[in-house]
């Protein structure tokens, strides 16, 4: 586990308006804090609104930009889901998703 407390976080205006409408800014902050401590090789977090598509309502995606640690078993996402399931009620869980963007540029 890496501690990357200072990684930059950007939140789009649309995502923030959506989160404020739900009254879930505190929950977002808890998620960002958790991601900073849980995601190995984290470089930055980009919080955006995923517009409603034909099968899904709008929701917030936390794109975690991170080092690519290879194709071996990486439990990060499953650990994240375990934490979300144990921490937040369904109405919060259904509005937020964490997804990775793997960077293999050797930095």
């Amino acid at each position, binding site marked *: 586990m890496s501690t990357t407390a200072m990684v930059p976080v950007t939140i789009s205006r649309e995502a923030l308006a959506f989160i404020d409408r739900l009254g879930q800014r505190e929950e977002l902050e808890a998620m960002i804090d958790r991601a900073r401590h849980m995601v190995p090789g984290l470089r930055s977090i980009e919080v955006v609104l995923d517009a409603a598509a034909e099968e899904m309502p709008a929701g917030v995606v936390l794109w975690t930009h991170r080092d690519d640690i290879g194709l071996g078993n990486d439990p990060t996402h499953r650990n994240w*889901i375990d934490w979300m399931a144990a921490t937040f009620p369904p109405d919060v869980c*259904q509005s937020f998703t964490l997804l990775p963007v793997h960077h293999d540029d050797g930095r």
Partner: protein
Amino acid sequence: MDGRSLIDVARELAAGSSEAHWRSSVGRAYYALLHEVLAALRHWGFSTPPRDRVHTFARLKLVYATDIDLKRIGLTLEALGRLRNAADYQLAQSSPFPSARIAVSAMTDSEAAVALLDALDANPARRATAMGSIPP
């Protein structure tokens, strides 16, 4: 055919050589889990809605279940659905798909969620608890 057969196709696509392969793999991984969840819900006595509403139906039944394993499976389905949105609808946004890495992760997550659903369904006591935790 069952939903899990699509995981094999997701694997083949993840081994492909282009961004189009990797984006398509994500969709197969999502549908593999969706169909397995729908099959389980039908097996447990729930009536599934018309086709355009099955995505929301499957996701919310599990996310709102009080059984923690069902909730985990629901959240995995939610994440795969969001990733599928990016893969299929946001073609200008290339950053999540520079390599096969995210397709392999999606396939692995889908496979793990199907295995968890199988384990739960195979144990009568666990199955009864899980079924009872799903909102009507």
